[in-house]
């Protein structure tokens, strides 16, 4: 193996709270990159703002720590300009499903080849524990002065409506399982969403490690088949979506993790490649742009 897990680490001190689920996610990313043997200079990790947002600093690839809620647009622009890079976007649930919800939806529609990992802890960690969009109504974590006023959004269900082609849920403390999900997501051609159940011991005393440990089970172990086998069959697509929806709302005593839905559809890159013969290398590969000849366009203006 050319690259070991440590090659994907950095010397930066990790500033998460002890016991934070983010550690598990970080480990899973490190391991997934090693499993795939991706050269560090061919990977770029993007993040939003939040505790989760610090992730790129702890990964030894290109790391771009963007703005709160805007990680998907930035990562998308990067990928479209430099499509040979493997692009991973990460962020919090507030970042992705709250302030970034519009981009979360639009990314599903575009199906650019990138992996999006959401650290779903039910709270706004870095701003001290306000309710995030995934915290159910009526729940009062220790950081809330009053029970939460709003209904939770169901990320899996929304992703189905938005057109995501790979939709999964991981658990921060099943690192091996999460690693495998990340590997599958990176290998998937198209936008892959992994919503990760992430305990925040500091602010969320309801959805804890103990809570999840007692409930989480793996979809793949139940014979659940998330894959649309004939991607042009609209009927199969809809059936698989309905099946995934039912699973998405299973959140009582048993909580499924694993891949909920998966389909192969042309990516935005496929479409662009069909339109732009030299797209791909050319944009960031600075030289060809020196040779543009405007003559035909100027001629039209005569």
């Amino acid at each position, binding site marked *: 193996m050319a690259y070991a897990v440590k090659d994907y680490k*950095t010397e*930066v001190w990790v500033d998460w709270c002890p016991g934070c689920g983010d550690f598990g996610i970080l480990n899973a990313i490190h391991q997934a990159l090693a499993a795939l043997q991706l050269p*560090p*200079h*061919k990977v*770029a990790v*993007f993040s939003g*703002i939040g505790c989760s947002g*610090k992730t*790129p*600093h702890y990964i*030894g*690839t*290109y*790391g*771009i*720590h*963007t*703005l709160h809620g*805007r990680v998907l*647009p*930035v*990562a*998308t*622009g*990067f*990928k*479209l*300009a*430099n499509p*040979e*890079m493997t692009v991973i976007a990460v962020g919090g649930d507030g970042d992705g499903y709250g302030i970034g919800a*519009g*981009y979360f*939806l*639009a990314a599903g529609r575009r199906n650019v080849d990138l992996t999006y990992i959401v650290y779903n802890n039910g709270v706004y960690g870095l701003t001290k524990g306000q309710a995030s969009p995934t915290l159910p109504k009526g729940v009062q974590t220790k950081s809330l002065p009053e029970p939460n006023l709003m209904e939770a959004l169901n990320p899996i269900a929304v992703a189905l409506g938005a057109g995501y082609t790979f939709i999964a849920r991981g658990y921060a403390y099943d690192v091996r399982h999460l690693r495998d999900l990340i590997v599958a997501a990176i290998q998937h051609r198209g936008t892959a969403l992994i919503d990760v159940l992430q305990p925040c011991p500091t602010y969320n005393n309801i959805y804890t490690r103990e809570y999840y440990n007692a409930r989480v089970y793996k979809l793949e172990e139940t014979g659940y088949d998330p894959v649309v086998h004939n991607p042009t069959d609209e009927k199969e697509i809809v059936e698989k979506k309905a099946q995934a929806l039912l699973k998405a709302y299973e959140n009582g005593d048993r909580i499924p993790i694993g891949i909920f839905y998966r389909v192969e559809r042309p990516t935005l890159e496929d479409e*662009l490649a069909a*339109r*732009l*013969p*030299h*797209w791909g290398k*050319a*944009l*960031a*590969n*600075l030289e*060809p*742009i*020196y040779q*543009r000849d*405007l003559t*035909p*366009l*100027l001629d039209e*203006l*005569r």
Partner: protein
Amino acid sequence: MPKRFVSWMIGGPQGSGINVAAETLAKAFSRGGLYVFANIEYHSNIMGKHSYYRVRVSEDPIHAPVEEVHLLAALDEETLFGDHHHNPEFPTHHGHVHEVVPGGGIIYDADLGDIRDRLKRDDLRLYPVPYFEMIRRALEPFGKAAEYRQYDIMRNTVALGATLAILDYDFDLVAEVIREQFKGRRARLADMNIQALRVTYDYVHEHFGNDFPWKVRRRERRGDHILIRGVQAVALGKLQAGLGVQTYYPISPATDESTYLEAVQSKYNVVVIQTEDEISAINMAVGAAHAGARASTSTAGPGFALMPEGIGFAAITEAPGLVVFLYQRGGPSTGLPTRTEQADLGFALHPAHGEFPHIVIAPGDVVEAFYDSFEAFNWADRYQMPVIVLVDKYLASSYITVPRFETRHLVIDRGIRYQPAGQRDGYLRHAVTESGISPWVVPGTEGVVFWTTSDEHNPKGHISEGVLHRMEQMDKRMRKLELAAREIPDSKKFTLHGPADAQVTLVGWGTTKGAILDALEELSALNGLTFNFLQIRMMRPFPAEPVGAILRRARRVILIENNYSGQLGNLIREMTGFRIPHRVLKYDGRPFTVNEILEGVRRALENDEERIVMISSEAREVIPWPTR
């Protein structure tokens, strides 16, 4: 000697094809060796509301509209008499008849009946043309005469045919332009339209003779010329600069630029992406810039209002190669979406919280728009800071005849790039250097990785709140602005048009340039004084020293701006301490006419007025073009 010109206007409801008629005529004039300036006023509406298009044509170069109309082509009643029947309680205008010069002409639908009484003036030549009858006749050869009512859209061609006859212009040139518009499967439409043109042309000749005092004749002109509008000039500049990714969210008047790029993206290998909103547009462009592409987004005020965060992000992460184009339109808020204004300068200068370097430049016409758009990307790469190019609706959509752009001397400069030393060689994305510039790298480069963040950071790009890292990075970023100030030549920052020692100095920026230039010559003749025009082009870094020097040396200074408060005047005072005593302002959403420049300057000089506010001729008497 005042320039000779003919000014034509066509008016009608949106969707009635006044654009096509006007642009066909403009193109035919321009190809005929003449100089054209053509601009449109229209509503934020798809169909039905009143719009009008002016085409001014001359044997000499011209750069702006004038108020007088020699020949008015009305596609509907509203063009003549206003919108009282639509808007009885709050009418918005009274038509354009008052803008027609004495002895001028009006083409209108004969079906309107006798309009003489309603015109309230009897010095005009009237050309009633039975629009539908013309269409019916034109359709005969195609066996469609019975369906002529369905072809009401061809009324614009009828008006154009009448125009040609009255102005006595070259029929074949116009027919050629029409033929180019309808190609392939739509060629039959060309034939129909040319037939309508012909039928009307003949009808007008037959019924009204050939006595119109203003004629337009084709002629020979030296050198290659093009007829171009701002969105095209910007798009061409971007293409020449090597634009890799253009993101946009539709908004008037910026969309047309992206649409143009979209149409040629396959040929020129540019990714043009319609995003979900402007926040996405700016951030996607920043992402593309970090990836190594030259990236850009074009928008108008409301879209720009969503970009502050992204601009600050680009600045602190030192994204190379990001240029934002802001097409100003009538504000505030949604405001006047399809009208023009120069009211976003203050915002563009302070486009986000905190302090960071960025460049703001405002080209004054299509030629500068082309070259500045090109150069903006060089600056964005070299200084790794966002560049904002301020244009406006008026520039975006006005057509003008200019010499064909020269491109051979244009050099792409992608700035200082990092040469990797070896495997994971400890590259510092935000290395602290004397110039402030940290060499950049294209991601994917073997052996190199980097980090960057919107948080304050250390040279490696990792978050740091340490006092010294903060100071280092802040100072380093701001040093780049000083560098830009030193390196960018004055010729890009301002231009003093006319004699250096003139008795009166006009000061302006952006697209008032055309009207001011067209007025300059007249002004001297009329006022018996010498005039020059200080055009400020770069607002940040601002050329405070030379501009201050020019102004302090100047004898009388008059500011001209297409906004309420004189934003450039404020900036000049902030930067130089110089207070310009007269402000000629206009903020009704319409551009300055040459007449208004003449009048505003007159009032400043003769009446010593401080604040002179212009209101468009569509809502007042025409300021007569001066005769000497």
